[in-house]
């Protein structure tokens, strides 16, 4: 055994979404290595009392209320009334205080490792400022995994990600800091910015394969994940509208088509009510709630023959997709947007097809619909196998 490993995510403040799932994934994953004295999770202090996160430590303040407000009312009245500048100063102080609290509460030593599965700006800033007060030989090993989400999450700096990278460059020489990225293209970007090699660490596969739908089930297309504009919600109508026409032209109505997609949040949906209504009117289209328990997500995923990810290539230029990881884990092919950060992985592992236009999405979906289920399943299993081997090797190398 070689010390403890802490999985830390200050952004984990909600009972749903990928932050909570990611922390549980990684805790279970690293416990499976049987290498650490303990694997503990440290989340935001405002994470509610979910049974699934019962053993989590709750410590961090929530630093992103002005970017991603959480409904549980995390702030004291005092903080709520600060002006912009004062609030920024409070954030700077809070993140450092929290980093010190982590070290103080858990007695962090050089034998320990700190793993941030989704490195965020204030979480990393607080840590780096605190570490600067310690001699390098007292530092734990710190593993910051960049996912392209909140590394630049601040309205109080002109270029927060650039600031973070500058602070990292100054500390990389200690040999105690290790950087990885979720996608190859982001790893290359960071490598150039930091002048060091950067590992590629997608999610390890933590879910087993899901049984393939029965032969009597409708051909089912799933647009999973919380629907947002940048995840292509508004593209679904055109893709599925055109796909339906070709599908029923080719197969007739004896083999129906079913489509699942998650709804937008109400504030995002308000400007698109008729559009969403028309989407709901398509035969076999079913709109799922914007927030779904994990078990419900798995139930719908199990019915799907293909996952579709029409994400905005500009927003996701460097970013990975946890939904892609789930598709790989579950053993489902994907049809996704080319030019995204995760397109390389889809291409390399032959996990599905890449598209740029609605016509290409339709063509890819028709190809899936025409492919015998056994062949789809085998191809997905092959992609899964290759991905699992590479992902495991990447983590073993990165966390030596």
């Amino acid at each position, binding site marked *: 055994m070689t010390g403890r490993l802490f999985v830390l995510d200050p952004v984990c403040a909600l009972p749903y979404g990928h932050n909570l799932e990611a922390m549980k994934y990684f805790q279970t994953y690293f416990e499976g290595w049987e290498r650490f004295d303990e694997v503990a999770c440290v989340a935001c202090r405002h994470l509610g009392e979910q049974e699934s996160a019962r053993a989590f430590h709750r410590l961090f303040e929530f630093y992103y209320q002005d970017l991603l407000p959480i409904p549980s009312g995390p702030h004291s009245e005092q903080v709520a009334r600060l002006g912009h500048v004062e*609030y920024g100063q409070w954030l700077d102080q809070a993140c450092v205080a929290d980093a010190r609290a982590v070290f103080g509460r858990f007695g962090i030593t050089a034998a320990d490792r700190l793993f941030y599965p989704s490195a965020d700006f204030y979480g990393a800033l607080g840590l780096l400022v605190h570490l600067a007060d310690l001699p390098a030989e007292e530092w734990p090993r710190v593993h910051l995994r960049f996912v392209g989400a909140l590394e630049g999450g601040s309205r109080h700096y002109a270029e927060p990600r650039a600031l973070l990278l500058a602070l990292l460059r100054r500390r990389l020489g200690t040999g105690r800091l290790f950087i990885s990225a979720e996608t190859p293209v982001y790893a290359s970007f960071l490598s150039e910015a930091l002048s060091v090699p950067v590992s590629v660490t997608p999610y390890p596969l933590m879910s087993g394969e899901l049984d393939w739908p029965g032969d009597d089930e409708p051909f089912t297309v799933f647009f999973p994940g919380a629907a947002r504009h940048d995840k292509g919600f508004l593209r679904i109508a055109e893709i599925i509208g055109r796909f339906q026409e070709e599908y029923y032209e080719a197969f007739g109505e004896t083999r129906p088509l079913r489509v699942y997609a998650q709804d937008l949040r109400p504030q995002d949906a308000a400007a698109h009510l008729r559009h969403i209504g028309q989407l709901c*009117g398509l035969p076999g289209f079913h709109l799922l709630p914007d927030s779904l328990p994990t078990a419900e997500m798995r139930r719908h995923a199990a019915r799907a023959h293909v996952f579709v990810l029409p994400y905005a290539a500009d927003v996701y230029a460097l970013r990975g997709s946890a939904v892609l990881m789930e598709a790989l884990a579950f053993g489902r092919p994907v049809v996704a947007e080319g030019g995204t950060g995760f397109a390389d992985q889809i291409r390399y592992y032959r996990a599905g097809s890449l598209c740029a236009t609605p016509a290409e999405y339709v063509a890819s979906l028709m190809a899936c619909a025409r492919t015998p289920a056994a062949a789809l399943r085998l191809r997905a299993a092959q992609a899964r196998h290759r991905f699992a081997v590479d992902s495991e090797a990447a983590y073993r190398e990165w966390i030596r």
Partner: protein
Amino acid sequence: MKRLLFVDHDFHGKTRSHEFFLRLLETRFEVSYVALSPLEPFDPRALDRPCDVALLWQMDFLAPHFLARDIPTVVCPMYDGSAGLPDLHWVALRRARFVNFSYALHNAVRLAGAASLHAKYYPDPSMLPICGDFSTLRAFLWVRRPEEAIDCALVERLLGDQLDSLHLHEVPDNRAAPAGRAPRGDAPFRVTRSAWFPDRGDLDRILSDCNVYIAPRSAEGIGMGFLEAMARGMVVIANDLPTHNEYIANWVNGILIDRKRTGRFAAERFEAIGRKARLSVELGRRHWLEQQDAVLRFIDAAEPPGIAASGGLLEDFALGLVGAYQRGGQAYGAFLADNYLALGLLGERRRHARRDGVADATGGTAADRGGEAEPRSAPRAA
């Protein structure tokens, strides 16, 4: 079993559009039923029945009556009745939970901060014959709302001589409303009429002969008539409002029109549209049957709103709200605005400390006000 009080609009005694839901509830709850007229003076004693949960079918304005008594309350509003209501209406009902059959209402309720489940009902298509013959076009219209100009003249404008026949069932919802435009003697299609059927079977026989269904109202709460028509494989032509435009994808499985503006269109692909309509109901029915358990669990999970006893203040407010509602839109809106503080007691005020990063002069933020525009002057006490 929990005791559920089903509070209904007395008009449904005629349409029976609530029955599918009542039967569903009876599988999980001990249901007692009461139907009220929203136009008659409200007597709270009519609702004085012991229950563990109150469910209001279209009678959303009665929710504060139950909330004020700390009774778990579920509301099933209907788009045709509640679409035009102000946001403060939903704020007043925020501690109820909602089963919405219209996506548009579902979103309005969610925006107001209440829990809502979007349910999509479909009838059982296996009970209905399919109209397969599209060699000629034969339309059916129940002239329920002649005052909305959904009548023979509209059909003639839309389809003209493409139509072979039109059957008008002339039984308006409001017999006191002005009569609609009568068919022209030289209409380009054959017109048949009825005013009464001895039994439902006669109506079914006429519908079975038709393949085009003109949705009789400009909007619907659910829309049993047009959904059954879709189940029959008929081409439904409907005004472009919910719930029509939430069940019909335009020119895929039905046709949406602007009843005031749409002119003649070519009756193309009607047979394919009719088949897609039937398919939509088959697939939708399957999903509805799967969704039923989630609906029942959602209703079962309704909790007391946790409103402290107010010495009759909130009960009086609830009574005043009903009276204002019955006096009409302007009076209702004024009542809600004038009683903003009481709404704050009835509707749980959630605190988002910094949604926009800026605290306002009062010390609160836009999020504290639940997104509602706050009155510039201090609200008058209830």
